[in-house]
């Protein structure tokens, strides 16, 4: 089934720049699969055990951290909430509730040497390595719109924007990116 992207009408692959060099790349993450897991406060231990067993991972990420395994990832977005990407899971509602959020966000991957500098044009988040190491996440805001930021590596971030605002935020991001030089990659 074809999924229509929120950026469908304005997503134009190509190199754009007021300078000669493109130091940033943007790529929309296609066909997101996001499952929100929301645990009850007194079931954290059971939740951790279950996740560990179901996902076959040893280190359960702490708050605002994530783990990437195979082509999947798990991010602890709030003390009691996780986002699980590209994986389905069944959990008893006595431990947690699960909710499909795959269509609620538009995901954008931002890569490049200037990615932190660029993001700080909008985000009031300390992205320095010692304070925001790889596999960190944050709930923050761009232009008053709540967004989720994942740091994959020092030069590679994923930004999740509420779908209805994605068009507007995409435009404003690219306007800012122009000074750095940027390329929009195939989805």
């Amino acid at each position: 089934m074809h999924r229509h992207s929120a950026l469908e009408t304005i997503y134009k692959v190509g190199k754009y720049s007021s300078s000669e060099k493109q130091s940033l790349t943007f790529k929309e993450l296609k066909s997101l699969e996001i499952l929100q897991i929301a645990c009850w406060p007194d079931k954290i231990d059971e939740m951790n055990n279950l996740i560990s067993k179901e996902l076959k991972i040893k280190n359960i990420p702490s708050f605002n951290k994530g783990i990437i395994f195979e082509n999947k990832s798990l991010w602890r977005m709030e003390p009691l909430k996780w986002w699980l990407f590209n994986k389905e899971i069944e959990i008893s509602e006595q431990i947690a509730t699960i909710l499909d959020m795959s269509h609620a966000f538009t995901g954008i991957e931002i890569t490049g040497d200037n990615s932190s500098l660029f993001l700080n044009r909008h985000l009031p988040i300390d992205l320095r390595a010692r304070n925001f190491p790889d596999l960190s996440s944050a709930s923050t805001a761009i232009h008053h719109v709540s967004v989720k930021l994942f740091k994959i590596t020092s030069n590679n971030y994923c930004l999740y924007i509420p779908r209805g605002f994605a068009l507007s935020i995409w435009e404003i991001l690219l306007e800012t990116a122009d000074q750095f030089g940027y390329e929009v990659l195939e989805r």
Partner: protein
Amino acid sequence: MKTRRIDNYGKINRDKILSFRWDKKNYKGFEGDTLASALLANNIGIVGRSFKYHRPRGIFSSGVEESGALVTIGSKDRRDPNVRATTQELYNGLEASGQNAFPNVNFDLAGINNYLGRFFAAGFYYKTFMGIPPLEWGKGTAIWMFFEKFIRKAAGMGSASGLPDPDTYEHAHDFCDLIVVGSGPAGVAAAIEAAEKKLDVILVEQDSLIGGNQLAENDFDNSQIKNQLENLGIKIMTRTTAFGLYDNCVVGLLERVTDHISASNVNIPRQRFWTIRAKHIIVGAGAIERHIAFNNNDIPGVMTVNASKHYLNRYGVLTGKRIVIATNNDSVYETAHQLSEAGANVTVLDSRTNFEIETNKSFEIRKGYVPYNINGSKKINSLDISKSVTINKSETINCDQVLLSGGWSPAVHLLSHRGVKPKWDYNNACFLPSDTKENITMVGSSRGLWNKNDCIASGIAGTTDALNRLGISKTNYFFPKPGGWKNPIQPLYEVKYKKSRSKSFVDYQHDVTTDDVRLAHREGFISVEHLKRYTTLGMANDQGKMGNIIGLSLMAELLNKEISEVGTTVFRPPYTPVSIGALSGRNVGKHFRPLRVTPMHQWNIDHGAKMIEVGLYQRPWYYPKENETLSDSYIREASTVRKTVGICDVTSLGKIAIQGPDSTEFLNRIYSNGFSKLQVGKARYGIMLRDDGIVMDDGTSWRLAENEYFMTTSTGEAAKVMSWLEELLQTRWTDLNVNVTSVSEQWAGVSIAGPKSREVLNNCVDDSLVITNNNLPFMGVTSTFLKGNIPCRIARISFSGELAFEVYVKSDFANTMMDLLWENAKKYDGCLYGLEALGALRVEKGHVTAAELDGRVTIDDAGLSKMASTKKSYIGSAMRKRGVLKNNDREILVGFFPTNLKETFNAGTIVCEKNNIKGQGIGRITSVTYSPELGHWIGIGFVKGGLDKWKDTTLVGADPVRNKQMNLKVVSPHMIDPKGERMYA
């Protein structure tokens, strides 16, 4: 024209010549010049006219404190007024002009004001033009209001272009352990010390070059220091002003990104507004040299001594040939020597009589002398001097320049932003920064240190202080004592002119004279804050950087007090002006606020929708055909819905997933009506009250599973309801296992309404049996598939009063759903309908929205009292029974018809009794529409006592705003199909 540029001086790049225009004439300068240095080099003395008296003004300084050389840069939409020529870097093609003058600053017709100056003292305008007898007899402002525009035009500074700003601006954020403001010897020492101790350091410098006041030293080479700083990993931000300090070590910076280059590229922001969050702040912002008040102390050619040194050693410009330096302190002698070496004939007047200074006798020193009066109007012809002990003209010195140094004022402004009051230091005749418990340390001359070694020592001590406060070290340290001159300064603020009329300027920019300060004292404005506001001392864009201390000293003398007792005004951000564009950043034009669209936004536009903003959302307003007006279109759309079928994008409704074992109990507590017995596969309309018993919002909740609900809210209240539910779960009902999550973006929704809606849907679902009347009765809910295997949720809900369904699919499938539904709706002559038709349909049915539920209405007022359970407790259940909410004369929801059915009316009309049309009347009309079904205008609203009281009485609708009045008939709000037979069909 002779040049003042001299060989072998300055750090400008003489290999790169820059062309610029000043007042429509072409000139040359060099790379590294400021506009001020280039103008001086080209022997241009008059660069401005004063604020009130239109006196010719020259260049007083070489920095941000400049109060004379305010000019306009650029033209047309890039015209930027009130720019300090002293900080504007020269670039090829720069276009600058004088301001506040006609036809130009050299010959200004308004210069006549100078000869009428005795009438223009502080407060003149208000005293003269307000309450003029016999017209206004001491009170009234009509005359002032008439003359104000002329007065404001005659006085002032530059004018903005009035055109949209073509440049872009942006905001940015950064973080560090230590931010150092100022790159003088103290700031650099602090930064190096901190970087060597492994702190993450940002060094901020407002100039284009680092070095601070060292840039005025002939042998200073900043490149070596820059390399050292960069090698230590220190982030250097030049052309960046720290304009304000805020809570928690937040520093506001303004970076001028392209103000120094000629090419304009809208993709590169002109200025960048930085918010820096640091753990500690070191301020080494330097000190500002003061002038001295005496008669005609503003004639072009007057300058601070340190500025002249900068022009000589940084820009290679000798600012005068016959120079008189007037001072009261040691700081001028090195400059005097250098000016003399450069070829100037220099005389130093020092107000002190008993002091020793080492010189090579290349210039004359007149001990015990002060400046008394400058002779000249557009340039200095000579200077009358006086002995400092008995003030009177004693002799005249021919000269072309007067350099002044009345002492130095540490730049305590940034610390003042934190509410820290500076303290007066008698020994150094200046305000010094007080201690603060915040992580802010003052270093260098901004803490009153006058020699370089002390500044460097203070920078290192400042970093040690920072390390200690951050808990990184526990090291003893000390700051050098304020001062550092061999001979003590002798306070000298004013040299009183003996003649009756004088122009001794305290604040150059606002033309505030010593006489104005005395007038303020005579009239009782003796508090420094009153003095400031009465005279406007320190209120121009230099914020009193040069003149404040002189004004305070005069008031102290008048009050027979010390300056420490008089105090100083509070410095507030910004330290130097910040453009409005920089404050706005990218939040302008179409990005003024974030735009929110539904997943079928483009689909709607492609199918002819005219959009309207609803909150942040763009929603289809109406879908005109060919030449249809809004009115034509919505009437057609609403009629089509009643006759056949219509499709409406309702995605903007708030949508909340409610999950968990206690979900039912949770809903039962937040809604006024019962939810405990709602079956799976059913939806229920619910009313949510506030704690005070007033209606908060309404919507439907669908029971999808035993412990899972899908709640819809009104568009406008979605965020409020969501945060309200979270608050309840986090604070009041922590025992409930319920998760609430906004899924407004996850789901796209449409309403399919009209007698043919089921038939349309039949063609769109995989299994048409799921939507039969039996399987999906009114308020039934089902999860099924649209053709093409699109999962969807369908509820049989009606806002229009017709047979209707709401269909939700996941957002990425919205366009596919719309294609499918629309293809089939067209077969039944259906239509797409927008918000306007939606409104018409719901008004006909008497359904309330935010227009009615405006925060004043109870559930009883809205005619929904049957939905208030008497069998359970819920939010607002106690308070809704308050006596005041049960009064019989409360305004109750009703419908309105105009008595004359050809008449129209508007929302906002006040409902009154006949012969008693006044005030707030007895009710109000909240929503109106033309009813296609009834063939005339209808409305809903509220009236005291409701339908029962007024159904046989003609009332009056008063609309004073639109100057309308009509007779009204009160009817039931349910004007169409009151029994609901259509929606149950």
